[in-house]
């Protein structure tokens, strides 16, 4: 049976300070849940930069090539028509569609990559840790397996950093 500590905060400044102290004492933080994006929290937690932009760039580049290639094939090879006396292969006319498809590919790829990586998406189980974190509470979740001394130590730190409420919970 695994258990964990969840500490509730009412203020983001307190939360950031508590995270800083916990990181300094090398206490493993499993997760931090906040009702809105908190500035600087990535840096304090030492999170790596997201790879999502790279996904966006690669998918966008594929979109560019796909849209441009497809239009070239359609208008030049497969079904050449004369439109307004323009040449079959006329780049300016292809640009708007290429641009839109690039944006479409990049956006969809990033959304799906995000859903995949964070295990969300269709059929994902709804796991709300506590309803208050969707409203006005900030939560730090810390593994509490080891022993009572460890637990008391963590609890003491959290209390000192003005944690509003500290609970010991068990994984279901």
């Amino acid at each position, binding site marked *: 049976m695994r258990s964990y500590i969840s500490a509730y905060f009412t203020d983001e400044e307190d939360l950031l300070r508590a995270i800083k102290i916990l990181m300094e004492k090398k206490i493993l933080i499993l997760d931090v849940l906040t009702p809105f994006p908190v*500035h*600087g929290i990535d840096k304090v937690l030492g999170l790596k*930069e997201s790879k999502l*932009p790279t996904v966006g*760039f690669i998918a966008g580049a594929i979109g560019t090539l796909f849209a441009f290639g497809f239009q070239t094939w359609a208008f030049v090879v497969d079904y050449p028509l004369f439109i*307004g*006396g323009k040449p079959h292969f006329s780049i*300016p*006319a292809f*640009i*708007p569609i290429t641009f839109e498809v690039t944006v479409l590919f990049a956006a969809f790829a990033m959304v799906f990559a995000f859903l995949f990586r964070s295990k969300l998406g269709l059929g994902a189980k709804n796991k709300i840790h506590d309803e208050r974190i969707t409203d006005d509470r900030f939560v730090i979740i810390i593994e509490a397996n080891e022993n009572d001394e460890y637990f008391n130590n963590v609890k003491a730190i959290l209390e000192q950093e003005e944690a509003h409420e500290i609970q010991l919970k068990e994984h279901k």
Partner: protein
Amino acid sequence: MDTNYILSKKTKQVFLSISVIGILLIALSFLFENPESKQVWMNVLLNNLYFLFLSLFGVLFIALHKIAHSGWHVSLKRIPEALSTFLPYSAALMFLLIFGMHDLYHWSHHDLHDPIIEGKSAYLNLPFFFIRMAVYFTGWIGLSYLLRKNSASQDLSNDYKFHKQGRILAALFMAFFAVTSSTMSWDWIMSVDPHWFSTLFGWFVFIGLFVSGVAAFILIIALLKAQGYLNFVNKEHLHDLGKYLFGFSIFWMYLWFFQYMLIWYSHIPEETIYFAQRLHGFPILFFTILILNFLFPFLALMTRNSKRNIKWLAMVAAVVLIGQWLNIYLMLSPGIMGETAKIGLIEIGSACLYLGGFLFVVLNALSKKPLLCKNDPFLEESFHYET
């Protein structure tokens, strides 16, 4: 905190030597290239516009961020303020056009017997042209002076009323500039080809103004930082300026392309002549401008770290500044000089001459006041800013 920028003798000498090199190049050009008077006036107009745009950007930047209640720019605002001090010089230089109108603007000649130009004569006539010019400069110089004065009095007093007054001035400038940025681009640039028109032209010129202004801003910050000033400007501020440069380069390309595509698509001879002249007469320059102003900054500033590295950012800004200069060159030169247009010694020389003078005026103005303003309600936010 109360440090002033000190314009050292050495820096002054560098600016002076840039101008002297410019004068030498111009002299050489007169000796060997025999530029016609059209080319000389084209250079006056080109550099007037280019440096006017940089200094207008200074006022625009302050006004834009003031009315948007922005916090991050406050610790930087002395630099755009200094940029805007070039406006009176710009005005004086621009009124030199009185002597060069006939060389620059075909419509300024009498008895052309040209029904299209006669149809536009209610707007394009000499007295009205200079009245408009006087109105523009009165508005711009007046409001930029008041904005600077407001910021100076805010330094001395903790009164909140200066913040409110500044916002009113900023709003007035934005409303005035919204109209005049379009009309100035018709007057000075579009009327070079009096038969041609494009409804998108005002935006296109305006966005070029913004991009080149941001690039100049970044370069001045890089220069000051290299000399050991501006400790309070951190990577977050650079990141935002980098985003401006990146985003507006894309927007510049967007407007460029949609102006081009609609004209290409509808294929009306009066409209296509503008691009035909530029694309067939100057193919290398035509595509170089697109690479320098869009493709290069787009690829070079795509990642987060590239926007936060001041050396890299300054390098991209320098490339964009050159690109924007070439862009104005290509808007003016083929219209004024036709096929004989080429970039010779006189172009480089006069750009150097203006550059040295511009840098001297701006950095001299910057050294007159402390680099960090005081009492702005958003100042503290600017220090703790995070993108």
